[in-house]
């Protein structure tokens, strides 16, 4: 389990990137929901925490692939593979992330430790 930050520190509409391996992005949507997915786009090396959230979808800041925050599925190309989704809980006012046990879909040239 990873501790992200106090819920009060993450305003609606904001996202943070956790320094995990691989990094995880936590989103607090305008509607007040919390989601955690792998931060690295499966297309190339971009941070989805830097992307644009609309409803339950994040758009990658580089080439505009869209991922469903609830399922990690690709809603719009160029990405071909989904991102992992992680469980989020708020415990004692802190956002906690329970990392998925699946293997991540990292983009070509990247490994869990960084560049190949």
């Amino acid at each position, binding site marked *: 389990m990873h501790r992200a930050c106090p819920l009060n520190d993450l305003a609606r509409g904001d996202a943070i990137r956790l320094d995990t391996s691989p990094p995880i992005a936590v989103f607090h949507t305008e509607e007040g929901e919390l989601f955690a997915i792998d931060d690295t786009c499966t297309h*190339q090396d*971009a*941070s989805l*925490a*830097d*992307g*644009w959230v609309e409803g339950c979808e994040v*758009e990658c*800041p*580089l*080439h*505009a692939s869209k991922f469903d925050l609830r399922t990690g599925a*690709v809603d719009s*190309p*160029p990405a*071909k*593979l989904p991102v992992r989704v992680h469980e989020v809980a708020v415990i004692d006012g802190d956002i906690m992330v329970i990392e998925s046990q699946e293997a991540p879909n990292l983009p*070509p*040239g990247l490994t869990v430790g960084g*560049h*190949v």
Partner: protein
Amino acid sequence: METLAIVGASLAGLSAARAARAKGFAGRLVIVGDEAERPYDRPPLSKDFLLGRMTAGDLALEAGNEDLQAEWLLGHRALGLDGEAKAIMLEDGTIIAADGIVIATGASARRLPSLEGFTNVHTLRTLDDSRQLAAELLPGRRLVIIGAGFIGAEVASTASSLGLEVTLVNAEPVPFSAALGAEMGEVVAGLQVSRGVALLRDTTIDSVESAGGRVTGLNLTNGQRLAADLVLVGIGAVPNTAWLSFSGLDVKNGVLCDAAGRTNLPGIVAAGDCAAWFDERAETHRRVEHWTSATEQAEIAVEALLGAAPSAAKPKPHYFWSDQHGVKLQFAGNAGEADRVEIEAGSAQAHDLLAVYYRASEPVAVLGMNQPRLFVKWRRALAQAAASAPTSSVPA
């Protein structure tokens, strides 16, 4: 519509096919492409693929399980089009009659006549081009790149990280100024120079020295001589429209289209690098050679072709990116409309700036260098401003 034919099986062509199916077109879908490969992504050809960090498989544009229920005629070149009959003639004599046609034949690298026929002179447009160039990028070699456009600059970045000695030769005084304006063009030029790339400005080739079919040196109009092991010509691209010569279509620098991709002939649209759409802001036809435009145009054009009511949405500001020396450049809008540029965050020296281009008080373009988060916000703001601006207030 029973048969929809798409000519050009790359980004715009695939995007058009996807859009047609997404909009419920259930008829016969034929996709003709002269390259043997299934649709692949070009941007990495000057970046991670050239560097060896991506494989050809990684370039595939289609997802593994994607099936558009299309007849793919790959490795087939279209030789002509009868625009009235909407019949496409292929090299092997096959004729494809269609009810609707999407022209998506893209562009080819422009060549320099004075450098034709040498074995160590390259251009970069296709997977094969990139493979051939990659095989020559050996440490210590002297690479001369003619033209400091984005492809030249990206190859300069890739090659210098592989240990080559790179010189960029630019005919204009300030590289990238057509796309970024002079001030920011200078900033990107500074990035290249700070990473050890030699940049020669305001000069072109005067004469070529060669031996055994290889270029060995270039004499420039400024009197300088450059020794070369390898030359890349990166002077832009020309639209692939020769096959449309007798089609009845209006073709100038690209297939002329309205702001929804419709050509002068009913039932025929064009999208991507081969098309010059009418740009309502600039009040002129413009060929926009960016990845994102190819996908956006394909969608809009297919919508127009399938007879959907033209969407009222104003076109989004043009967007492109470039990766150079580990810096992610992102640009949206039109630098030509601006009268000043302001750095809103970061700095030119640190190569992490966010610069906004203004015309009077209106933001008209934005450039980010390693500023994806801020850039995304500005790009959205620009798109919203463009969508709400009445066309009449827009400068010609």
